């Protein structure tokens, strides 16, 4: 496996990489958002006069003096309505105004001078209180059943099982906390708009700005190669972006709006709260015969996204009888949105905890139970998996981690004041190959430029572009310049659904092959070419023919052709004959202090079956990063909603806890690296989300092994272990 340093490493370690907020066009003015301080109601009035009189203030926009934005028409994971177009408040922290001033300090202080009068209503802000009135999602499928011949209901199958368990698992709201707060810098030149904004795909803000500003996509150029983390919350285009672009248009000068960290918590969406009631039924030998999961997700009144949290229970283990249901609790809270492995991360916490509870009931080793129920085909569709080596993940992991040293009796292994437990869980995430277009330019200086409107959120995608193009072109990696995050380049796959490399990788290779063909044709046909009329071939960066060879850059220089440019499109995979998923196995050791209940993760191993790994160096980091976020989910993260006010009670980075360095042990990652040749010639599936799935379950299972306590409500904080 190749192990290559990030191509963007030098600019990132020297501070030279320019993120959205780092742009400073001539004549820049500063925007500062005003947000609501009630969760539901009507704005009666806003007194903006003191702000308008404040030094440096250029404009104050509110619902009573709005910037006109057209309704959104296309689906997005963000809000359904553009900001400031009416006087309704749907959640605490909603954008209700924008102050623009000459400096950031002036805009911030002026925003504080605006007072707002509300007709406030009591918000629906308690998930627990809403549970009895949970409803099937509008437009969604409320239930899915797969029953064996002759079986009339899932409950009948459960009743007929030798052993069964039923438990309810709950997860709190979480939020992404990407290190880069969302920012938009907008400047107009005539009727053309240039935007720097953090996005998981630069064509996404183009779409939203097209509809909200009422202009053509061709007038909009979004440039943003560096993104300071996404995890789902830079997929949707949020309120500040159209607002900032509209303000810049109205004022005739560039405007920069950067969200404060507190605003990021509310203006941008969060992962919903979920509840899952899981029943598993098995034969005495551990064979699953019934899997039932009734899943409920919170959903914001401001948009339509919820987690189909139970659905993973349909896809992971074989069972003759399966049932899931989906319901939502609608709440007056900020937008619910996609966050790393939406639904599957929370879904796996419940399913993987339940599998261990079933193993206990059966008196089986939890690893043996999973081996027993590994399935060669998708449990619902019956389609064979394109490439699945989960059993090898389990076996390699067990051997490498020392699983045989796990005590089957919880609470029996100690080390001083610490109770020591081992846990494991299955990792999995869906795979696909979308359509992607890539442009390759071979230049007369011997370099290749590889372009596509993809995004590198820290994933290593730009380095993947360089590696794959260099390989096909037979040149060193450092002679390839990847260009991502520019909406003027071809429509490559955006960074979402773990689908970047699986789609863009084959497209880069196709485009590089096409570029080789183009330069060969040029060599054979150009009137000044020394290879004219020869049988021309291409190898190792050189054009060859008639016993001669010349690097492509030299040839182009000789011919006076500055560059050869081609674009190729790799089509979407129809996925009709196979099912596609990545798999893996987590193993961890957790120590719980016997006096304080403090849980600490002491070691971790993740064995990964995700097809071809293009760059093991960055892939290892990405898998480890997913584990780190999973440890946060397991032990720390809990976005608290005050039930009386609908306000997030811990919307700061000091109060919403995410892992810090000292919370994280060494993380061992092993890749099996079997190419998935059914998905593509490249054989890469995707790893962005895989490793958070199962991580919290593995921690919960290790905590149980250490202490005998089964915690079914995340996060597993020390109060639950005392």
């Amino acid at each position, binding site marked *: 496996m190749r192990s290559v340093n990030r191509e963007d490493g030098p600019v990132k370690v020297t501070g030279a990489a320019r993120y959205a907020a780092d742009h400073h066009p001539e004549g820049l003015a500063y925007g500062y958002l005003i947000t609501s301080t009630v969760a539901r109601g009507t704005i009666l009035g806003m007194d903006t006069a003191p702000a308008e009189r404040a030094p440096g203030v250029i404009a104050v926009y509110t619902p009573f003096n709005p910037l006109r934005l057209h309704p959104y028409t296309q689906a997005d994971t963000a809000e359904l309505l553009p900001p400031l177009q009416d006087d309704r408040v749907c959640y605490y922290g909603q954008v209700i105004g924008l102050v623009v001033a000459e*400096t950031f300090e002036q805009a911030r202080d002026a925003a504080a001078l605006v007072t707002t009068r509300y007709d406030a209503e009591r918000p629906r802000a308690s998930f627990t209180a809403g549970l009895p009135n949970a409803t099937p999602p509008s437009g969604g499928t409320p239930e899915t059943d797969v029953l064996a011949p002759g079986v009339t209901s899932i409950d009948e199958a459960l009743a007929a099982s030798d052993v069964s368990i039923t438990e309810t698992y709950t997860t709190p709201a979480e939020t992404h906390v990407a290190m880069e707060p969302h920012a938009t810098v907008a400047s107009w030149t005539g009727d053309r708009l240039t935007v720097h904004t953090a996005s998981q795909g630069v064509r996404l803000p183009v779409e939203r700005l097209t509809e909200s500003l009422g202009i053509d996509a061709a007038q909009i150029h979004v440039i943003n190669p560096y993104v300071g*983390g996404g*995890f789902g919350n830079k997929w949707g285009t949020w309120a500040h972006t159209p607002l900032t672009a509209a303000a810049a248009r109205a004022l005739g000068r560039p405007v920069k709006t950067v969200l404060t960290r507190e605003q990021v918590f509310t203006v941008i969406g969060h992962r919903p709260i979920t509840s899952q009631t899981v029943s598993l039924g098995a034969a005495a030998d551990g064979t699953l015969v019934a899997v039932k999961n009734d899943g409920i997700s919170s959903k914001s009144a401001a948009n339509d996204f919820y987690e189909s949290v139970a659905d993973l229970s349909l896809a992971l283990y074989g069972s003759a009888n399966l049932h899931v249901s989906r319901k939502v609790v609608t709440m007056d809270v900020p937008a619910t949105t996609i966050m790393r492995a939406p639904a599957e991360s929370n879904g796996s916490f419940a399913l993987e905890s339940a599998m261990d509870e079933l193993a206990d009931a059966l008196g089986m080793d939890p690893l043996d139970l999973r081996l027993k129920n590994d399935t060669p085909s998708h449990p619902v569709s019956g389609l064979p998996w394109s490439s699945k080596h989960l059993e090898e993940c389990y076996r390699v992991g067990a051997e490498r981690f020392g699983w045989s040293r796990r005590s089957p009796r919880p609470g029996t292994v100690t080390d001083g004041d610490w109770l020591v437990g081992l846990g494991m869980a299955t990792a999995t995430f869906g795979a696909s190959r979308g359509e992607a277009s890539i442009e390759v330019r071979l230049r007369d200086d011997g370099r290749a430029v590889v372009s596509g409107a993809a995004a590198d*959120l820290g994933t290593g995608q730009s380095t993947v572009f360089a590696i794959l193009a260099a390989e096909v072109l037979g040149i060193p990696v450092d002679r390839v310049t990847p260009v991502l995050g520019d909406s003027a380049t071809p429509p490559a796959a955006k960074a979402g659904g773990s689908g970047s490399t699986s789609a863009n990788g084959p497209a880069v290779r196709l485009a590089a092959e096409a570029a080789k063909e183009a330069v060969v044709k040029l060599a054979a046909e150009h009137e000044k070419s020394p290879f004219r009329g020869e049988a021309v071939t291409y190898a190792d960066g050189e054009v060859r023919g008639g016993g001669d060879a010349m690097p492509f850059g030299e040839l182009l220089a000789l011919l006076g052709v500055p560059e050869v440019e081609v674009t190729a499109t790799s089509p979407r995979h129809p996925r009709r004959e196979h099912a596609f998923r990545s798999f893996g196995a987590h193993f961890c050791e957790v120590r719980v202090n016997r006096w304080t209940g403090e849980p600490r993760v002491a070691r971790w191993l993740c064995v990964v079956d995700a097809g071809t790994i293009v760059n093991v160096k960055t892939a290892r980091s990405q898998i480890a990063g997913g584990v780190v976020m999973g440890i946060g989910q397991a032990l720390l993260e809990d976005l608290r909603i005050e039930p009386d006010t609908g306000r997030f009670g811990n919307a700061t980075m000091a109060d919403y806890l995410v892992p*810090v*360095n000292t919370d994280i042990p060494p993380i061992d990652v092993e890749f099996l690296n079997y190419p998935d040749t059914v998905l593509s010639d490249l054989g890469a599936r995707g790893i962005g989300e895989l490793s958070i799935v199962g991580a919290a379950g593995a921690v919960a299972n290790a905590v149980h092994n250490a202490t005998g306590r089964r915690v079914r409500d995340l996060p597993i904080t020390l109060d639950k272990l005392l």
Partner: protein
Amino acid sequence: MEHGDPSLRSSSESAANRLVEVTCTVNGTARSLRVDPRATLLDTLRERLELTGTKKGCDRGQCGACTVHVDGRRVLSCLTMVATLDGREVTTIEGLAEGDRLHPVQRAFIDQDGFQCGFCTSGQIMSAVALLREGHASTDGEIREAMSGNICRCGAYPNIVEAVKQARS
């Protein structure tokens, strides 16, 4: 009901009109500035001096992304008012390398893949340089503890520990 956003606190208008004269050194260059007394070092570096390598992650001293050195000590530039820096010496991420020659800590972060998105990286590197100088990097545990003021949401922590160890040796 009537209220402003309680998270915001306005300073007086008179303060907004009064500028403060400050002379300090930034990355070895003397700078004479007339600054808004409300201006933080972070905002001044980023918006006035166009040294945007220092990042704003929280603006409240909670994330570490804005870490720089003042007179060789690591400080959070979002909690440092420029008006307090007269005669002081500021070093940012842009001042670490000597020309094209990276500082050993910068080199180590590349070699060990000590970052993913790169947004916290300037602060991580500035912290790492200082704790190595202070002698706070003798064990893995000490490195992890001393680097815990710098949040990395991509989860590059194990690689950051390896990078600090490489730079130490």
